[in-house]
């Protein structure tokens, strides 16, 4: 953001006089874009500190109010919000831990072993990524009903434990970052195959595990359609569902709702601040490497 003075150094790249104009154009474009991107988040925080009647007045509030505590109380009257947050957290943790385990295991097998049918089986894994998820909505609901998994979190984390995307990601990483000689050496030392995975592969997978873990966690935390199908009561609702149910009430308390929204968004922003690069790489790797 710092240096509108820099264009002079670019003079060699393009004829003088042209660059500053286009650079100012770029600054303007990016600034407007950034403003539009950030503004809704800003208003989320502002509204979270105002009561319903203050939010809907003219002009709308643009600075923080002092209603956060009563919004908080009102939020807790409408839904057991900490319980809902815990449900979201539990679901995300279960999904993440199991996904990391099964995907790294399968990714290791696809990357480090040569076995009959490997190419075919791996193309099957990739092909499943092409199935549009909407095809699965109705049968998913029916099967969970049949299994008696309605209103239980495992309905949401068990089916995705060994995700095709995760296997793809782990295979790419293990295949390119871990030398095969390490595996051979461990085998000669008498390590079992699972032992090789646990003592050699897993400790070296750190970056890929972090990326896959973040992606899985955030997808689970933000999931809406899955929980909408599975959860039926205030007690089992995840945070997004609980917020949605408050929004559905007749006299929506927008201040309380906005506070709840802020409470679900803040943890993500914190994670994002520390791991943006990794998260962006992970989320787009399916599109960019596939």
């Amino acid at each position: 953001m710092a240096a509108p003075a820099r264009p002079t150094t670019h003079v060699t790249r393009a004829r003088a006089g042209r660059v500053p104009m286009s650079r100012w154009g770029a600054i303007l474009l990016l600034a407007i874009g950034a403003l539009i991107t950030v503004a809704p988040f800003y208003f989320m925080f502002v509204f979270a500190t105002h009561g319903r009647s203050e939010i809907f007045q003219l002009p709308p509030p643009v600075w923080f109010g002092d209603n956060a505590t009563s919004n908080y109380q009102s939020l807790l009257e409408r839904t057991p919000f900490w319980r809902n947050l815990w449900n979201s957290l539990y679901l995300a943790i279960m999904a993440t831990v199991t996904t990391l385990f099964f995907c790294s295991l399968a990714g290791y097998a696809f990357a480090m072993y040569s076995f009959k049918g490997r190419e075919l089986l791996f193309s099957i894994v990739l092909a499943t990524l092409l199935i549009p998820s909407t095809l699965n909505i109705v049968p998913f609901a029916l099967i969970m009903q049949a299994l008696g998994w309605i209103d239980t979190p495992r309905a949401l984390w068990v089916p995705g434990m060994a995700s095709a995307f995760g296997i793809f990601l782990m295979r790419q990483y293990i295949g390119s970052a871990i030398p095969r000689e390490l595996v051979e050496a461990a085998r000669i030392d008498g390590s079992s195959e699972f032992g090789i995975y646990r003592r050699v592969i897993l400790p070296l997978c750190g970056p890929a595990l972090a990326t896959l873990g973040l992606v899985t966690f955030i997808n689970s935390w933000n999931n809406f359609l899955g929980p909408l199908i599975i959860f039926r009561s205030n007690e089992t609702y995840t945070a997004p569902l609980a917020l949605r149910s408050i929004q559905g009430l007749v006299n929506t308390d927008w201040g309380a709702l906005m506070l709840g929204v802020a409470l679900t968004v803040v943890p993500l922003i914190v994670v994002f601040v520390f791991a943006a690069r990794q998260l962006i790489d992970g989320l787009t790797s399916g599109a960019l490497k596939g």
Partner: protein
Amino acid sequence: MQARAHPPTERLPIGARWNNFQRRYAPYIFISPFFILFAIFGLFPILFSLYLSFQSWQPAAGLGEMKFVGWRNFTDNLTDPTFWQSLRNTAVIGIESGLPQHLIAIPLAFAIHMAFKKAQGFLTALYFLPYITSVVAIAVIFVTIFSWQYGVLNALLTFLAGLPVIGGLFPQEKINWLGNREFVQPAVAAVVVWRYVGWNVVLYLSGLQAIPKDLYEAASVDGATTGQSFRFITLPLLRPIMFVAITLTLIGNLQLFEEPYIIAGDSGGIGNVALTTVMYMYRTYNFYGDAGLAAAMSWLLFVLIGALTLVNNRIFGRERLSGSD
């Protein structure tokens, strides 16, 4: 088994035999969870749904009540005006949200790439933030922003309309974004655009970074302006990544559900204008309790997605850069 060929294996001690066994089958065991889970929660449900689309069945009545009805679920859907309306809505919202996404993301990515190399990490993170925010949170925020009498957006438009020179460009009256048939679709589309621009910026940036720098240098030596290099170098070489990005937008927009569902409500908004096909399918299953009809609808949508992806491949694909490894 033993009678045939391999005398040496017979003499191996137990430990070594176990060793051979686990070495041989370990990879299959390691990849088996995926295939087991996919069989149960992926393949079987899809086949079941295909079977279901030829049955008349209300799940509430129990499995015994299933009745084979041939193609009737498909013909029922295809003669249902609401189904066609939902397809139109999906198409309109899809185009209104799909085109701007790319028309905004490409210049933004170009601006970051040309002018802000140093701040690239920060800027992409900023633009990417909406993508990692839950749709429920986004929808709740935007419902207040779109509010008719007191919303931030209308307040801003009123302010802009009051400005001296450019005021005429803006509406003089407040717009009832979520209560007026004409504006619900653009409002939903605007939220989708807001959410996905950053995602596309990241894709296009990675495409821009793959373009060799000497091309630009050669062009500028020949006296090309920034605009000309954009038009004659960037755009053509961005084609492969454009293909990927547009394909993803196409597939995603045809399955649009969460944004319209939460912003306009499960009723689909005034006069059903925000009722997308997936929303209608969900309603058919969840509220009308007709699993067969809903399953048939999902297959019709599947066929449509497949067909449009193929068309997109024809128009945009093929001419991919070779050797981009």
